[in-house]
């Protein structure tokens, strides 16, 4: 089905008679080209038609993201004074356990004007099938051949030599995954002018101003928002907070904590199950933290293994090393936002906030200039995809400027 391509253990996901050499010879497009926007709008419609999306809010969200109105809105943030074109061939290595991520990676790169080779997760996810099915349906209409020609969706196991081949022909390689995965993929050479964009393992936190939270009329809503940030991804996404920083007056903090965690507990108790081995993991994490933390910490007694809260007496710089999944939080009452700047290292990605003004947050970053934190978003929004990710403006970095004087 794919001519001039002789690796046999690669599954080509959008089936059509293709030629790998010709695929690579496709021209780049300009960012936000009408053709791409039209394609995405139709893709959005095709996904919406699939009844299965009711079970998969992540696919529904992706479909919604692709509609024309949203994309045009995103485009407004860019003004291209000079000629811009996609960089060429972008090879995406999607993470193995986040189903929809490959699609966002691909769409960002399409919007930047590139030709894309996308390795989808080797594990089979129904979400992936829904999206691929929608693309296949578009392919049958024959309407978007020009765009479809520029996408190659593949699935293969890590033993395959395909990573080597795709690396050797790409202009940009995007690697999502843990540090080990990135090191493994990087063993494959890319051409001299090509470069990698890596989305490595990150650490995220949440800051809540108790002086504001204490007046919150709908703590249930905030609990739901925090659930979306954490438990929805087993607290295992890069964007999921592991550390909860409380700001504000002592009494307010104490009361707020109670309200916040009680509401979270009520919200999750019927819908979330901690896997037995993860219950043991939490205990191991807590005891490790107890052994290694120079100053004392305390487990706040919770009813069960759903929420583990570790009260810190002191905020130590290596707090990001003590984390678990599925509901394990270190907690600290800080005197001010600036007190947390000392712990922020390059690993820090997302700061979720409640009850703090945007101005204050901007000032915090400008004053302290921390090495980490690439995104600051309201609580509940940590997993929203953005074209600015991990500090990269994906459209800019995935396109090139041609200067004409």
């Amino acid at each position: 089905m794919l001519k001039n391509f002789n690796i046999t253990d690669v599954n080509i996901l959008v089936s059509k008679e293709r030629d790998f050499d010709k695929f690579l010879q496709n021209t780049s497009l300009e960012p936000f080209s009408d053709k791409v926007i039209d394609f995405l709008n139709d893709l959005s419609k095709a996904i919406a038609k699939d009844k299965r999306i009711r079970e998969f809010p992540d696919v529904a969200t992706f479909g919604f993201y692709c509609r024309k109105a949203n994309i045009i809105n995103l485009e407004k943030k860019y003004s291209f004074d000079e000629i811009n074109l996609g960089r060429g061939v972008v090879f995406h290595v999607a993470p193995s356990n986040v189903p929809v991520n490959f699609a966002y990676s691909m769409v960002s790169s399409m919007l930047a004007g590139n030709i894309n080779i996308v390795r989808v997760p080797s594990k089979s996810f129904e979400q992936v099938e829904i999206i691929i099915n929608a693309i296949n349906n578009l392919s049958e209409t024959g309407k978007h051949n020009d765009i479809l020609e520029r996408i190659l969706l593949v699935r293969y196991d890590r033993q395959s030599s395909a990573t080597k081949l795709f690396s050797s022909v790409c202009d940009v390689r995007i690697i999502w995954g843990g540090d080990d995965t990135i090191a493994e993929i990087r063993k494959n050479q890319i051409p001299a002018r090509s470069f990698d964009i890596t989305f490595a393992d990150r650490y995220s936190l949440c800051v809540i101003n108790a002086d504001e939270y204490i007046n919150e009329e709908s703590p249930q809503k905030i609990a739901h928002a925090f659930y979306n940030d954490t438990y929805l991804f087993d607290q295992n996404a890069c964007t999921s907070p592991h550390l909860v920083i409380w700001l504000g007056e002592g009494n307010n903090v104490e009361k707020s904590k109670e309200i916040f965690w009680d509401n979270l507990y009520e919200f999750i108790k019927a819908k979330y199950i901690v896997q037995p081995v993860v219950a043991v993991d939490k205990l191991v994490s807590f005891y490790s933290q107890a052994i290694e933390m120079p100053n004392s910490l305390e487990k706040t007694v919770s009813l069960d293994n759903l929420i583990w809260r570790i009260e810190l007496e002191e905020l130590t710089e290596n707090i990001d090393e003590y984390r678990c999944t599925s509901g394990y939080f270190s907690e600290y009452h800080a005197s001010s936002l600036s007190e947390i700047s000392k712990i922020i290292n390059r690993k820090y990605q997302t700061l979720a906030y409640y009850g703090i003004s945007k101005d204050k947050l901007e000032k915090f970053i400008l004053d302290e200039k921390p090495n980490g934190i690439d995104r600051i978003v309201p609580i509940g929004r940590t997993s929203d995809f953005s074209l600015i990710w991990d500090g990269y403006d994906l459209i800019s970095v995935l396109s090139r400027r041609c200067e004409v004087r």
Partner: protein
Amino acid sequence: MNINDLLHIDPYSLNKEEKQNVLSQMLSSLTKHHYNNCIPYKKILDSSGFNPNGNYNYTEIPFLPVRLFKLYELRSVDKKDVIKTMTSSGTSGQAVSRIYLDKETSANQTKVLSKIVTSFLGKQRVPMLIIDSEAVIKNRKMFSARGAGILGFSFFGSKRLFALDEEMNLKIKEIQEFLKTHKDERIFLFGFTFMVWQHFYKLLLEKNIKLDLSNAVLIHGGGWKKLISESISNKLFKEKLYNLTGIKNVHDYYGMVEQTGSIYMECEHGHLHTPVFSDVIIRRYNDFSEASVGEYGIIQVVSVLAGSYPGHSLLTEDEGVLLGEDNCPCGRKGKYFKIVGRLKNAELRGCSDTYAEKF
């Protein structure tokens, strides 16, 4: 009560209330001992808000996940007093548990193991056939679980023969000779469950060799993981061995390197029994509370033997179920239970690939 007192009574003679008193007293005092002699253990109890000086029922004493012994050097005696370091038999590359034994703890382990096993085997030492290769016990500096098990049980053999050579081939001629020499004696067979199945039973079957083991007792342990993957249950294991060799007395045991000595032997009714030296508590997954009889949970094990390291109360990564207490038809007192298997690996969403299949 102390360990010596317990060594003087039948290992399955205490009823629920008596045992609870004994264990609560002995394990509380071990908790204090480790708190005062092992800094990491002290930090754990302090952080958990547990006061070691209180009076506790033994079920209230915190349990350490066995994995901690892979991550930290946990001991309650001076380094110079450590005479043996036991390690779990992890596959290469995996971290192994390290258990530090002083003279007293090590001696107690031997005594208790002997007490438990002789109650099944009789006090007389008997000819012993070890279903393994001598190679596993050659490196005595590092005691792997397998080597330690063999050495521990070798105590009961008047004469010993290793049934396998270094290449894991069955030494058939020598075995036949051994059985002939000890024709009218009771024979003690010992080995790891998988070794017995893979390198003994299967080979006898394949080569169509008949051995008469009708007068033998087989004690085996080490877990069923590999046999389960071949769909071999304990019942089937016994049936097949019986059909081939006529062996009637077959006892599985549950034990771990983190609590050597105080093992859980399988009775004639197929139940694993807790002796007076140790106990199991089945913990619910969702809140670690104590599960009822018949309810699946994570197995916690306690043992009065762990003196030189803080391993007197441990949370395993095994699943089990309590079948009853003090009322097994075999007549032994104490809890009896069944192992369900290992806890399943977690399958998590999210992008951190700690647990996920790597690229």
